[in-house]
């Protein structure tokens, strides 16, 4: 028998472990998706295909309300965080380093560094006081909290794009007597648009998925889909939670695929 060619990059067992890791990583998610179409309520016995649980989730007003709150909060938070992140990215890239730049970086990335539970109780304390002072108890608190932790996620792709962008085009625009605003509007912004869209999508996904901060900030009746699901867990496991999970997974997957298409480097 011919000996296999000796590959220097091959380490014994590594490929086996890696493939096992991928299988184990996806098996639970795939199981969850598959059993959301199960006719029965057992999490391990297949009783035939059915959209029963989706119909049940759809007919549930609590789920519908939570879905609406999720979309409103994520929509506003993604928009706000993307606008301010774009401005901040324009103010912190493509120039000589200035004093305070590191401070701005640290502040923008702060939500990535602080454990969510700590931010969550901090907001619980502060918003409780503000609620008492102002009497306002709408969705504004959730939108504000989500906008804050979405900023770094919107900022990173926009900054990456700006840093790889060709400055000569804007110089050319300036040479042709474009004002600063015209050069931005007609040259920079169109070039930056895919990164801005990518940042917004990432922010939207992050907001849509948040559990911990939302759980602590929300007022009664302001459940989002994840906090609704967390609340359901106190009772017996419901397959309609699987159905909601599958829908959320689908939304995340679509947005992430779009994100990759938009940030893909064209060689």
């Amino acid at each position, binding site marked *: 028998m011919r000996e296999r060619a000796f590959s220097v990059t091959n380490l014994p067992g590594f490929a086996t472990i890696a493939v096992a890791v991928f299988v184990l990583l996806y098996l639970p998610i795939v199981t969850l998706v598959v059993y959301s179409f199960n006719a029965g309520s057992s*999490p391990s016995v297949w009783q035939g295909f059915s959209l029963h649980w989706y119909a049940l989730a759809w007919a549930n007003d609590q789920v519908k309300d939570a879905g609406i709150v999720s979309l409103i909060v994520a929509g506003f938070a993604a928009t706000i965080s993307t606008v301010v992140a774009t401005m901040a990215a324009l103010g912190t890239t493509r120039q000589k380093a200035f004093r305070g730049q590191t401070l701005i970086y640290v502040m923008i990335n702060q939500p990535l560094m602080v454990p969510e539970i700590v931010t969550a109780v901090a907001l619980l304390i502060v918003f409780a006081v503000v609620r008492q002072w102002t009497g306002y108890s709408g969705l504004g608190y959730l939108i504000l909290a989500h906008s*804050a932790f979405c900023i770094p996620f919107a900022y990173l792709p926009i900054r990456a794009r700006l840093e790889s962008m060709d400055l000569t085009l804007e110089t050319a625009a300036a040479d042709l007597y474009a004002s600063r605003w015209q050069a931005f509007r007609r040259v920079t912004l169109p070039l930056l648009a895919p990164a801005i869209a990518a940042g917004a999508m990432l922010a939207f996904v992050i907001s849509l998925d948040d559990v911990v901060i939302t759980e602590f900030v929300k007022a009664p009746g302001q459940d989002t889909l994840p906090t609704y699901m967390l609340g359901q867990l106190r009772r017996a496991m419901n397959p309609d939670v699987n159905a909601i999970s599958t829908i959320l997974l689908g939304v995340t997957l679509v947005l992430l695929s779009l994100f990759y298409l938009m940030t893909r480097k064209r060689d």
Partner: protein
Amino acid sequence: MAPTLEERTTRDQIRRNWWLSLPALAILTVAAIGPLLVVLVYSFLTPGEYGNVEWKFSTEGWTSVFVTKDIFDETWKLADAHMTIFWRSVKLSLITTGLTLLVGFPTAWFIATREPRAKALWLFLITIPFWTNLLIRTFAINQIIRTEGLLNTGLLKLGIISTPLQITYTDTAVLIGMVYVYLPLMVLPLFASIDRFDMRLLEAGYDLYASRAQVLRRVILPLVKPGIVAGSILVFIPCLGAYVTPRILGGGKLMMIGNFIELQFGQGRNWPLGAAISILLLIIVSIALVFYVRAINGENRDA
């Protein structure tokens, strides 16, 4: 002396930069950084009778992290319950970090040594769980390991076990959950590190009659060490502050620091104590981050 034109434009530019960054910084100050300072203040206040706080300075929040006063004879004792929770959090976080490193390294190596197109695909496959809702992934793993889940049903059918294994609501369940949930955080920085590793060094090693184990230990590991440090810290930090995974898989009793913090902010509990533990957690995480930044900088210097 009047500033030169160049100096003036630079100064204008810097002012413009600050104005552009201002809205983002304002939102972060109001809804992320400022509230942390309030937590710090709360940790030095007197606990209120029905939760909340009284605005009187006190170090009770901080002392009660470590010691409790006996209600009968007023003697101070080490706060055993708190220590148990801290120890469990640190222990589970360390084991999780070790296990993710053990399986994450071969995975990252595998991805980094594929052909470019296959590499992009495998990388995408590891990134999807990374961005997927943590709650959903915890649900998913819970459905596998729970008493009437797929694992037990399968093992029972195969006759390997005769009674279902009770995995949920044990430390093992929390451990399985955290390894499952945080594994991508280990693989991604490891991959970044291995991907820039010059594979010709392996040839050199083998040419010099090194065994595979020697190549791994003497060539590969020292060069990807920054990635190992970075990945370990990226896993350790969220483990230590974990809230969702221990809540779902550990039940109400097997708390980690995150759940203990939540408990203190409930009705009739000790808010200053909760605030003090939050600050403590923040300090530990900050120290870990300093090591993380060092590892990353070391990596960039070597490249």
